[in-house]
């Protein structure tokens, strides 16, 4: 449900950047981490709905990349990918003494403008 407010926040950034650059957006690249509560399909759905009424945005596309969960282990010092997010253990040594390094954020990576 809060994908709507996230999408509005994305749109605000797009408008700011396009105004600053006196340009129009073509593609907006978003990274959505697996551990966030945001879902790719909902972000795209809300974007496509909101852009229809906006002259600046109507021909643009939101491209969402899903980011897997990656950790660094404080015991064996290795990094690794988490397969099942209900088992947050180091895939190398099985330690729970880990820090999450990827998968927790919703990030606007870049905007392609023309």
């Amino acid at each position: 449900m809060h994908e709507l407010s996230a999408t509005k926040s994305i749109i605000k950034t797009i408008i700011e950047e396009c105004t600053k650059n006196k340009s129009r957006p073509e593609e907006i690249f978003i990274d959505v981490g697996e551990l966030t509560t945001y879902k790719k399909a909902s972000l795209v759905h809300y974007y496509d709905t909101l852009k229809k009424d906006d002259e600046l945005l109507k021909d643009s596309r939101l491209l969402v990349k899903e980011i897997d969960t990656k950790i660094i282990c404080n015991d064996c010092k290795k990094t690794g990918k988490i397969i099942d997010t209900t088992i947050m253990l180091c895939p190398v040594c099985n330690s729970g003494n880990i820090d999450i390094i990827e998968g927790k954020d919703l990030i606007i990576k870049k905007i392609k403008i023309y």
Partner: protein
Amino acid sequence: MCKECGCDSTEEQKNENKQTKEIMIDRSVNIANDSIAHMISHNLKDKKILCINLMGSPGSGKTTVIEGISSYINPEEIAVIQGDLESDIDKIRLEKKNILTYQINTHSGCHLDAMMINKALLNMKIIGKRYLLIENVGNLVCPAGIKIGQHADIVTSSTTEGSDKPKKYPHIFLDAKAVVITKTDLSEAVSFDEKRYIKDITDINSKIKIMKSSSKQPESFKEIAEYMIHQRDHLIGLSHPHHDR
């Protein structure tokens, strides 16, 4: 013919001629919220106030935990921000315990955010308090990962919800410093599988502190109060004997 200006270019030709450029942003979508949350957290630390984000399902016992710890921490040292869709039922409950409480009604909103907390704090006299407990909207999904200025997340999880909650709702436990298993007097009646629950929750977060409480055993809230005192000491840099994390 071009639809925009009437020139002879086709749409394809126009697209080919289009000069594109990429602007790197690399910024969190939640940056506005997170900046305010950071400011709140910083200001509260300066005032030597520990801020806890208390999360859990509706009816999991969040308000009961606050009532319970007020027997072990002077209520005058505690301030509470209550988040509910509607009503001030919990505010009235806590005011009966002499706890300063500010009610936020989110109406249809599923979680609190930093802007709401900032506004609440502008309307509260928190000078002299040592603990700010933010009782988030009852929900095991949406409040997870939304920064509201807290120094620590504590989750209440009742035996009556079932021992499968960590497996079903892992996000809420991921960053939590502690979980309180509430309503332990009902464990047997609802066949709560504590062993399975603890295994599943530590699979998600091996560093989580696990505590238990029951409103039928008021002394069970003492451990939670001591844990909060310990967390505040840590925050403001006071030394203390180390028994646990």
